[in-house]
């Protein structure tokens, strides 16, 4: 069997289909349970009385879809970012595994389409808006009859030059066009090296990567304000761009590591040995700590300054029966677990520990995004159940199908990469 090209076997496709169908069943089950009001009837009823807003199960579905969108866009983006970082740093060790993170980028065009659909569904199909600032009644100081507008919100009105639908749409489109453009151009340049083996491809990729990293640094920060932070429209945090990046990066690294171990177990990538795994493990270990650092920086400054309009963000999460357990769990499994398990050299060099940690970290950072989005979007109507697990499974199946399909198109390992020899003798 030729192990140079990844073969997307019917068996693997079947497993992914099973994953997707199970997810769909869980989603339907979750919806039925919510329609019957199982467990949530009282909460929803109470919410209705208090806030005067109708809670419909579709709101929770759209919120979950949005979380998954952001999360998986992150994985796709980090794939390209990791690829670019390796080139910009002229790294040698990663040469044989470069195409795995690059393949994550295949997800982005699909992600864009889904993002647009979910954005429309979540904001324009009912009176509910996932993004509070899309509520047009907030902006006018006076109503048409000259009386004061009871819904007028001076803070949100002040953010209008930035947070308005037109500019928002333009930003999102620009980001995706540039990201996908870089993905296509870099992929082409990278694969062209296989054919003619010229060093110029490698040199040009270094330049492209450097430009991409700069654009990524700016765009990922702005995207995080747009897609996540603006859900809590009144609230802002200046470290938020870094926070989202850290969460994306560590989950992307875990996904890359998991993918590499998975391919290795199936007999691909014979040149990847425990030294390469060690480096990937160090990445996951280090950036779990980096995420914790950013997360804590945000939390502690807000905690210590105790300014009401800032601390409301954490009050919402910590005083809620639904979110407080997730809040602590998030910190436990995203910091203590990888920190203590991956601390030793041996744990990073053996696939089993690495795999367990990567799976936990991937789930943990999904919870991180859940905590960023749900409390702001659903307030007391949120929850964690079949609907959340089901939507994760559907997205995961789609993501895996698309990137594995992309990966199977050409050789797994670059043929003429100038650093290949160095990587074969990589030793740490």
């Amino acid at each position: 069997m030729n192990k140079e090209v990844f073969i997307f076997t019917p068996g693997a496709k079947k497993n992914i289909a099973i994953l997707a169908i199970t997810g769909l069943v869980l989603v339907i089950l979750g919806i039925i349970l919510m329609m019957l009001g199982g467990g949530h009837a009282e909460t929803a009823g109470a919410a209705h009385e208090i806030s005067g807003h109708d809670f419909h199960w579709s709101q929770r579905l759209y919120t979950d879809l949005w979380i998954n969108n952001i999360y998986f866009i992150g994985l796709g983006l980090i794939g390209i970012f990791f690829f670019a970082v390796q080139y910009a740093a002229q790294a040698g060790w990663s040469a044989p595994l470069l195409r795995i993170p690059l393949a994550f980028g295949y997800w982005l065009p699909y992600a864009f389409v889904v993002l647009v659909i979910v954005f429309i569904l979540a904001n324009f199909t009912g009176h509910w808006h996932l993004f509070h600032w899309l509520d047009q009644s907030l902006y006018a100081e006076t109503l048409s009859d000259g009386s004061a507008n009871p819904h007028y919100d001076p803070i949100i009105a002040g953010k209008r030059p930035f947070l308005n639908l037109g500019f928002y749409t333009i930003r999102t489109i620009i980001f995706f066009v540039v990201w996908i453009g870089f993905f296509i151009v870099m992929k082409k340049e990278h694969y062209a090296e296989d054919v003619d083996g010229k060093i110029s491809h490698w040199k040009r990729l270094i330049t492209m990567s450097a430009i991409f990293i700069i654009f990524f640094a700016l765009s990922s920060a702005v995207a995080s304000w747009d897609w996540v932070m603006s859900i809590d429209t009144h609230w802002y945090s200046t470290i938020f761009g870094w926070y989202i990046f850290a969460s994306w990066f560590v989950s992307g690294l875990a996904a890359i590591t998991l993918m590499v171990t998975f391919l290795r177990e199936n007999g691909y990538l014979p040149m990847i040995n425990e030294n390469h795994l060690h480096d990937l493990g160090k990445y996951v270990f280090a950036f779990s700590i980096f995420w914790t650092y950013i997360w804590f920086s945000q939390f502690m400054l807000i905690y210590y300054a105790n300014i009401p309009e800032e601390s409301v963000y954490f009050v919402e999460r910590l005083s809620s029966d639904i979110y407080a357990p997730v809040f602590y769990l998030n910190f436990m499994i995203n910091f203590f677990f990888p920190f203590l398990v991956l601390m030793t050299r041996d744990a990073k060099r053996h696939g089993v520990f690495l795999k367990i940690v990567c799976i936990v970290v991937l789930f943990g950072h999904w919870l991180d995004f859940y905590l960023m989005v749900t409390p702001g979007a659903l307030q007391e109507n949120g929850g964690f159940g079949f609907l959340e697990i089901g939507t994760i499974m559907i997205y995961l199946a789609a993501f895996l199908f698309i990137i594995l399909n992309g990966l199977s198109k050409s050789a797994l390992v670059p043929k003429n990469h100038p650093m290949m020899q160095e990587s074969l003798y990589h030793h740490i």
Partner: protein
Amino acid sequence: MMERNKNFIIGVYSDPDQVKNAAKAIIKSGIRIHEVYTPFPIHGIEDVLGYKKTRLPIVAFLFGVTGTFLALFMQVWMLGIDWPMIIGGKDHIALPAFIPVTFELTVLLSALGMVGTFMVISDLKPYKKLRLMDIRITDDKHVIAIDIAANSMRVKDIQSVLKDSGADEINEKNFE
């Protein structure tokens, strides 16, 4: 650690790969190598010499844990028990506010403890008399040192093994 009054046979090499292969050949012929001295780290030489993995990380961890608890104890006791003060309307024991100090002390004790332990186990101390097998190991030569007393083989045989392994020079070194 070097003991006093020892006689060594040293082979001098100029190429890092050569010294690695030479060490393999010497060990294969049944000679115990005292130590290999190189001007820069040679990857994989520790595997050839059969060195055990360093336990320094365990030391670092233990010192780090000590730092964590010391820092927490210090702050909780000072600000929470011995002289409670209200700062910024927080509880006396405001755990999140204690974390930066805890982090710093963890890192500090971990680093200092590791350096100190390393100096002790490597016998690095002030006024230590330097014993160089060959002055050129600080420049561009690699040296394999063999302790004569630790080997039952005759000096002549050891010398011929060193010669076969590709040594540029074979010298003897005596420390008073």
